[in-house]
């Protein structure tokens, strides 16, 4: 920033920081040897950092009061372990930091320096998505002076939001080992604490103790794990305990829920019921748009288009606004809102014409994560709309101005979500796209010229989730689009795209691309012979990483199908000297077939079909899958040699 040398010296005086270098909390460290030499070798293996001790004490004093006391000692072994140091504590209107203090110890376990509250920076937590939110944090900007070192962070926070009892896992993350970790939750029995344990196994021994007013978990000596390609998400492989209170409070509103039905009812009554008012002008407008249409699905389509044209996504998260949608009439007035606001607005509009639809809470993202189905609690990070349909539900993504009606894509597909109906909540699974749904058909032809250039055209039709990844091209500026094709056809060097025509059909959900292009030196010339890969338009070179030993199962989250047909013409006067044989594979992960047939004196047809199946597989099958992909990658790149007769 360009600022203010003239006043700088003044500013500096008022912000001089004085460290108190000599006072350390010996009382706590007496019980613990923080020397790096005390870490067992097994915990150093593959670890960038070691959690020496993690103690979290959650005390629920009443429905509207909870304290969290945390003490965490982490030894950072190297620079990469720095990211495991979470020297940050969040606060907001209903969450107060009562204490925050950190002390750094050297490798021998000797205290070096203590950082007190005033040494922590106060900052707004701009999450990069919200235009505004009122969450703040205290954080310590620490520059290590040597490795390894140990940081002990102690915090105490108080909050009235008992709707959020942190979930607990004995595993901090990948490449982190744990010497000792524990959690204790103290509660009032009349508030009814519920918990759900997932992925508990002998691999991670966890000790559990319970009293009528408390529950605690302890785990020791957990070795560091490496992240493996294609492994299921963290929440699906490591032990986690989820908590909820039957009698809780959220932003000063009391709630009561034994199950999802109750929880959904509370959610609707407290957060949604009073937000639905739609101004008369807008109601009129909607009626006008709907006209004589009677089919609920078509009416919903009209309203969804109206919302897409009228609104845009702007995230504003303030106070309970972080949980409660902005009023529908405010969205109507301003023309923007976040996912909650836009979903609720669409729902309210639909309600004015008598079409039921439901606000739906989901964990969003390309990785499919479920709402935990048997513990009713505040979960999820996104909201979509569910409209009942003959076959189940139609799902609307209301934050998108371009998504086709009823098509959710891979941001919210195939996962358990919470549907909130006025009469209560329900867990439902969103649409699972089968491998046959995610279809891409490529038909093309190209000629190889005597100088090795390629001159060709191709038509590509994408459906299902393949549509999802392609239809955005329609909105790209010309040069961006050309750039994208050059990346997509990265196997064809020196590509020039001469003609592009795109058709998007949002009703049938089909995206069609027609391209014409040229490329110099596609075929390599060696001594008058030309050599090139026949399958020019759809080379799949993905091969997963090799592991000498693999620990976790692997998951193919989504299946797909590719069907390609390419006709190749070779220059006159040339004949085929050597032609690849083709390949056929059939495995539990999918099928692959590529054939090359001579169809005329100078034409060759390349037919290819690839089906990848969705599934969760045992780690012992990983190498087979890798080989399968390796063979595909190689066969896709099979080359032909042609020579002058």
């Amino acid at each position, binding site marked *: 920033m360009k600022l203010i040398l*003239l006043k700088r010296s003044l500013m500096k005086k008022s912000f001089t920081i004085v460290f108190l270098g000599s006072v350390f909390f010996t009382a706590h460290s007496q019980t613990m040897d923080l020397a790096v030499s005390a870490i067992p070798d097994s915990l150093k293996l593959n670890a960038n950092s070691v959690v020496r001790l993690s103690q979290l004490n959650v005390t629920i004093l009443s429905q509207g009061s909870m304290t969290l006391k945390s003490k965490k000692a982490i030894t950072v072994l190297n620079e990469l372990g720095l990211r495991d140091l979470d020297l940050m504590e969040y606060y907001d209107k209903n969450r107060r930091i009562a204490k925050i203090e950190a002390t750094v110890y050297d490798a021998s376990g000797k205290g070096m320096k203590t950082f007190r509250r005033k040494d922590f920076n106060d900052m707004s937590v701009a999450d990069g998505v919200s235009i505004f939110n009122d969450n703040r944090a205290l954080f310590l900007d620490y520059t290590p002076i040597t490795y390894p070192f140990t940081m002990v962070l102690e915090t105490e926070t108080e909050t009235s939001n008992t709707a959020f009892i942190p979930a607990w896992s004995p595993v901090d993350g990948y490449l982190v080992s744990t010497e000792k970790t524990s959690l204790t939750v103290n509660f009032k029995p009349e508030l009814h604490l519920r918990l759900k344990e997932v992925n508990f196994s002998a691999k991670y021994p966890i000790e559990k103790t319970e009293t009528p007013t408390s529950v605690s978990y302890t785990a020791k000596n957990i070795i560091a794990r490496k992240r493996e390609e294609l492994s299921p998400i963290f929440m699906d492989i490591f032990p986690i305990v989820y908590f909820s209170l039957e009698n809780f409070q959220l932003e000063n509103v009391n709630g009561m829920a034994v199950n999802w039905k109750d929880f959904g009812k509370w959610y609707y009554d407290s957060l949604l019921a009073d937000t639905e008012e739609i101004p008369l002008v807008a109601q009129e407008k909607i009626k006008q748009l709907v006209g004589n249409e009677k089919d609920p699905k078509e009416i919903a389509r009209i309203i969804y288009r109206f919302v897409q044209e009228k609104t845009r996504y702007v995230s504003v998260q303030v106070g309970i606004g972080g949980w409660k949608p902005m009023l529908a009439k405010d969205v109507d007035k301003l023309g923007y809102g976040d996912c909650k606001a836009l979903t609720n607005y669409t729902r309210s509009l639909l309600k004015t014409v008598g079409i039921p639809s439901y606000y739906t809470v989901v964990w969003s993202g390309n990785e499919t994560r479920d709402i935990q189905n048997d513990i009713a609690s505040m979960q999820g990070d996104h909201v979509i709309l569910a409209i009942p349909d003959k076959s189940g539900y139609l799902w609307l993504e209301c934050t998108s101005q371009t998504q086709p009606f009823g098509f959710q894509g891979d941001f919210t597909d195939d996962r358990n979500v919470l549907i909130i109906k006025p009469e209560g909540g329900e867990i439902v699974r969103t649409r699972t796209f089968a491998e046959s749904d995610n279809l891409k058909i490529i038909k093309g032809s190209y000629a190889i010229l005597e100088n090795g250039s390629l001159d060709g055209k191709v038509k590509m039709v994408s459906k299902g989730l393949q549509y999802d990844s392609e239809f955005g091209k329609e909105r790209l500026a010309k040069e961006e689009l050309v750039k994208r094709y050059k990346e997509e056809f990265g196997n064809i060097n020196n590509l020039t795209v001469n003609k592009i025509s795109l058709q998007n059909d949002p009703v049938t959900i089909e995206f069609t691309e027609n391209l014409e292009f040229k490329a110099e030196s596609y075929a390599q010339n060696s001594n008058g012979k030309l050599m090139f890969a026949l399958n020019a338009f759809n080379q799949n070179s993905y*091969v997963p990483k090799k592991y000498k030993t693999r620990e976790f199962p692997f998951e193919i989250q989504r299946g797909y199908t590719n069907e390609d047909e390419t006709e190749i013409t070779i220059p006159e006067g040339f004949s085929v000297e050597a032609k690849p044989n083709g390949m056929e594979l059939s495995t539990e992960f999918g099928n692959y077939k590529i054939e090359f047939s001579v169809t005329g004196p100078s034409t060759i047809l390349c037919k290819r079909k690839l089906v990848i199946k969705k599934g969760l597989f045992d780690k012992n099958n990983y190498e087979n899958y890798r080989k399968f992909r390796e063979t595909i990658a190689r066969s896709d790149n099979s080359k032909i040699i042609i020579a002058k007769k």
Partner: protein
Amino acid sequence: MKKYLIALLVLSGLCLKAQTKELGKVTIEELKQKTHPNDSSAAAAVLFEVGRTSFEYSQTNGFEIVTEVLTKIKIYKKEGYEYANKSASYYIGGSASEKLEFSKAITYNLMNGKIEKTKLGSDGEFIEKVNKNWARKKISMPNVKEGSIIEYKMTLRSPYITNFPDWQFQRDIPVSYSEYTTYVPEYYVYNVRNKGFLSPVVKKENTQNSITSTSKERGWGVTTKFDQNVTNYKELKTNYVLTDVPALKDESYVNNINNYKTTVIHELAGERFPNRAYENYATDWETVVKKIYENEDFGNELNKTGYFEKDLDAILKGSTSLEEKMAVVFNYVKARMNWNEYYGYTCDNGVRKAYQEKTGNAAEINLMLTAMLRYAGFEANPVLISTRSNGIALFPSRTAFNYVIAGIELNNRVVLLDATDKNALPDILPTRDLNWLGRIIRKNNSSAEIDLMPKSNSKEVMYIMANVSPEGNVSGKIRDQYFDYNAFVFRGVNNKVAKDSYVEKLEKRHQGLEITDYAVQNNNDLSKPIQEEYSFTSNNSVEIIGDKMYFSPFLYLAMTENPFKQETREYPVDFVYPHQDKFVVSITVPEGYAIETLPQSKSIGMPDELGNFRYNISSNGNQIQLLYTIDINQAIISSEYYESLKGFYKEVVDKQTEKIVLKKA
């Protein structure tokens, strides 16, 4: 008797002529427009942006800089909705705060052939306190659709006369009209600089302005007397206009796109008040250097030596040669000090405290280094630089720089050192420093330009010994040596990574590759090149078609894609440092096969010796030898050579992928 002075501000002589570009004059034609006339792919465009910066006087605050900007934006597509949100930061940390205000914010839409206006309400404005020094105001315009026009006025009032805003004529969307007018009182002298490829039309005019102060004198409840004092002063009015400014688009291999954005920059150069001596801040490099030296967080800190003398005496004991001493001091600072990732050429906590805590910003570490080198007898001086992220320092000004390193004048040349990076060496600087020119500041206040760009090609030499099996698998040994910047970059990336995950990464990058016996030497011995050695097998380097084998002598290491794909190029290509890659390959042909064809040896150069490659291949019995070098002789290659560069890399790819053919004997 009490005396109250109330200052009133009257700006006369500034009566605004009816501007052609005003808010509130949206037409149906503008709203109907579907695409930008000059750039049909634009998601949005600035129809106009008209700004004025002037000085307002008050007896309590003195002169303040007031900047008003009127903005009118057309939204063409949904992708342009982000331009309907605007945010701006302002300083709240000092003894006086800046004030920022949005007003007249209106969205216009066409509804049934009529213009519909929606005003921004208070619910669309947000204030965020970013930290103790900065706040941010954000507005989110209501009712925005494809085709909307939005307008707003932004006013920034700053008590800091050094904080003259930069005016950017160019944005990442087209700007149809950009006008900026400055009114600078005769008391202030600003250096005015233009950056970018486009030149605005500039008009200058001398005008008059005045300060009217009213002093009110009250007697014992009887009379009140007013005195008016009018001070006339000259004012320089400068007007800049640029029309039809194309969108600024980023490209790959660009250093910092902001270097090319057309902008006018003002830097306070001096103050000239009546009855006071002229205060010169920065009109030329000499003054800039003097001012920086006078800054207590620079000059004073540089001159301190007491905090390290004893320690340094001890470690210097026994070192006699200059090289030895330089290495001892440099290594000592690198080993002791840990960079907190803050830039700056002034110290935050001071060198003494930084030394004690072993942590500091760039200034603390490198001024300390300079001071120690001086103490050890070197002619060492600070070198001010502008990092890559800060853009290129084009003009004499204090703010042109944001970082400092050390320079030693030795045998008529300057050796550059930066101790913020543990892997740095004399003349091997962290890449953030490699940004054209820096300026060395000598003790006598003289200064000189220093070229920061590396001059010699950093080498990588790879020795490959490979055997091809009759099944078409390749196995062999590789020794790969990295020198200079290549070694620096290697250490920066790989020293942090565990060895086996590095090997996994290599294997993943090259399909069908397996690496064993991987060893790397000299990761931490910076005086030697990095040397990697490993054995490999690759089952994907050779293609067997019929009774022939085809493979590139580069095996799996051939460059298969041209990194330059754009048809044309606006901005220079930045390679960061010049380099040479060398391959020495020796391949044994399997038994039962004979060499049918070898690619031809070939050498190709780029114009003006910017680069070249040499490809020499030969065979002897069942042995094939390749000797290949590619040189890129300049770190930065200007866009006029883009065609040649792209063509050169096409040849590189063609040659590297060209196949050797073996035939079954």
